[in-house]
């Protein structure tokens, strides 16, 4: 029989990891939903955000400043990236965007290695202290990170639903052609959404950094997991990605009670494959669109 308290602890862990992953996946699904781009370099944006955040914290001592600096810098970089590599590919086979973003991913990973060196960076936890969770001393920060991630996603949701540009984004996602015919500057909406996605990725990187170190290769890991989440949740479906992120993270957390963490990752792979076989539009998508 599995110990009850271990299961509860893993539930909390799963929720925390799930929220951070949800933040990454939301950006990815938003980008895919609006411009059919599968951003292979998304995880590397998380990584860059983590590094920029770490460096800013080291020089300013403030987590908050680091957070905003990272988000804004990576957003700006995202704009540059979208304009130079993705805009020329509009109208071409969508697989070219996978290839192009894959190339970008390689460059970013090596660039990070070059600029930041091979050692991992850490950000000290901005919310110190722990509380008693059963037999463990559970860091407050973990809960804080999950709450922050949730708040950002909530803000995104409100922005999309009620903001002026939210309507533009939603209209463009639904029908790019008619949105353009209504005077909405679609190419700029695309750039804007990419920037938002990049900023969210960077934010996840900064939130994630105090939980585990930021390494140059963590990008691929995040990208892969975010893909899995986005597919399981339904591509382009924001609510679905969030639920899927939590679902997949919980599965992995429970699995790591039985197998090593390195192998627990297979659980999410299996979830993906099962989803693709039986419910290819996504597990959390209602069948009426």
């Amino acid at each position: 029989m599995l110990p009850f308290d271990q299961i509860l602890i893993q539930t909390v862990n799963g929720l925390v990891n799930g929220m951070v992953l949800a933040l990454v996946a939301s950006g990815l699904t938003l980008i895919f939903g609006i411009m059919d781009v599968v951003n292979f370099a998304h995880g590397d944006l998380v990584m860059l955000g983590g590094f920029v955040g770490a460096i800013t914290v080291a020089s300013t001592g403030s987590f908050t400043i680091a957070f905003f600096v990272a988000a804004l810098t990576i957003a700006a970089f995202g704009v540059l990236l979208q304009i130079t590599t993705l805009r020329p590919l509009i109208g071409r086979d969508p697989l070219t965007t996978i290839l192009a973003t894959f190339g970008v991913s390689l460059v970013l990973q090596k660039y990070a290695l070059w600029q930041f060196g091979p050692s991992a960076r850490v950000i000290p936890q901005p919310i110190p202290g722990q509380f008693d969770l059963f037999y463990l001393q559970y860091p407050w920060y973990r809960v804080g990170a999950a709450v922050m991630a949730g708040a950002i996603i909530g803000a995104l949701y409100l922005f999309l639903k009620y903001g002026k540009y939210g309507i533009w984004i939603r209209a463009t996602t639904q029908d790019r052609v008619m949105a353009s015919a209504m005077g909405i500057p679609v190419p700029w909406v695309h750039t804007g959404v990419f920037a938002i996605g990049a900023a969210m990725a960077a934010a996840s990187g900064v939130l994630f950094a105090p939980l585990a170190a930021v390494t140059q290769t963590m990008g691929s890991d995040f990208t892969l997991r975010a893909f899995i989440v986005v597919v399981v949740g339904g591509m382009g479906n924001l609510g679905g990605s969030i639920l899927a992120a939590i679902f997949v993270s919980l599965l992995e957390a429970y699995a790591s009670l039985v197998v090593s963490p390195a192998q627990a990752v297979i659980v999410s792979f299996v979830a993906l494959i099962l989803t693709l076989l039986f419910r290819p539009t996504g597990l959390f998508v209602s069948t009426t669109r």
Partner: protein
Amino acid sequence: MLRLSDVHTYYGKSHILHGVSVEVGPGEVVGLLGRNGVGKSTTLKSVMGLVQPSHGRITFEDRDITGIAPHRVAHLGIAYVPEDRRIFRLLSVLENLRTGLDRPGVSEARRAVLLDKVYASFPVLQERRNQLGGTLSGGEQQMLAIARAMMLEPKIILLDEPTEGLMPRMVSQIRDIIDRLHQEGVAILLVEQNVGLTLGACNRCYIMEKGLVRHHAPAAELQADPSVIRQYLGI
């Protein structure tokens, strides 16, 4: 005001428009008739920039707009109401209207005025303003599509088969809307299968066949001599 000169357009490898020349003056209601597949919709799409002409010119108020991006065409004062309406199904009625209303250079007050005007013309839209576009009936969606275009305060509206699939009662409502727009000085380029409606609403008509304009006459003349219509449309 709007002029197409010898426009050729391809869809992939298909040569759809073989040199279309059409003109619409300010405030005119001009019809574009023809059988299915002759290129009527493609003509409208070429004006709107939704397809790129390979040859020829399109000018609006003496400004060359051939092949420019659709959102810029819209800003110049050309609005488009497509076949199948294509309203934003997951946006509410009000949000659909706002896609045209939220433009630079339009004050809050002006927006409120425009909205009231449209609600007055289309009371059913006011009733359903918070409902999702996809839940409206066919006729209501058509009205929303036209109302949405009106939010752009256009100088000319490109109307593509507005009465398709509508009940006769709604068809006459569309006719009223077209007349009302004409009274306000908005020009209309109307593509339609409903010959009676077209001849009644328009000043003059072009008739297309296989990607070319074959005939051009005032509506009255076409009404007087139905043999021309029969020749090109087989009706």
